[in-house]
């Protein structure tokens, strides 16, 4: 199973992977590339990863979700150069009912953001480039230069 994708993510493919006649509830989350961050206009971005660990951590998160709730989980994260509006991350969960599908979906995206070693470099409209640092509240990026 590969969770990192260099090519565009197809949400329908993820949903198809979790669907089952026994499952009446499917929840999904899509994270898209925004055109702004910290008040600056973003032109495009690049995601890079510690690939082997990112794959292992994604597998652990999916296994944790599937052991905590009676659900099936599909997860994909895009790597490489992305444009505004591209799907950066997608989660699909299916369970017998909506409660477990929603709960597992929320768990997976929160754990991905917290644990998976992926980094984001933003390219701004003004020509500046910065690594995004979500741990900084106000100055949320380290500017590399213009």
């Amino acid at each position: 199973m590969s969770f990192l994708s260099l090519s565009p993510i197809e949400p329908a493919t993820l949903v198809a992977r979790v669907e089952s006649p026994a499952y009446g509830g499917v929840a999904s989350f899509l994270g898209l590339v925004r055109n702004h961050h910290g008040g600056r206009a973003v032109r495009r971005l690049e995601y890079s990863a510690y690939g082997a660990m990112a794959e292992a951590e994604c597998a652990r998160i999916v296994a944790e979700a599937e052991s905590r709730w009676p659900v099936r989980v599909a997860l994909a994260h895009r790597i490489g150069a992305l444009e505004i509006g591209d799907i950066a991350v997608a989660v699909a969960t299916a369970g017998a009912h909506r409660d477990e599908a929603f709960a597992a979906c929320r768990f997976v995206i929160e754990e991905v953001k917290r644990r998976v070693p992926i980094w984001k470099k933003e390219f701004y409209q003004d020509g500046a480039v910065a690594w995004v640092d979500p741990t900084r509240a106000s100055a949320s990026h380290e500017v590399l230069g213009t």
Partner: protein
Amino acid sequence: MPAPTTQIINVRVLLFASYADRLGLESVRVALPASATVADALDHVRSLPGGDQVPPRPLCAVNLAHAGLDTGLAEGDEVALLPPLAGG
């Protein structure tokens, strides 16, 4: 009594994103005492040119799993220093 022999282990430390940029390195081989922890590998990296830009308590991983600074290391381990994560 024979003199105590100091066992040495070799580990690889991986750097990513802003840390790799700051040191101009993506990986470095480090020889450490057999009793070494992640903190010792970090100390070595922070002593390199540009290494002072790596914070004293970064996120770390050993062999593809998150690990604390007090995690013990063994021969051949792959240590990673992880800048603030920004996936999702």
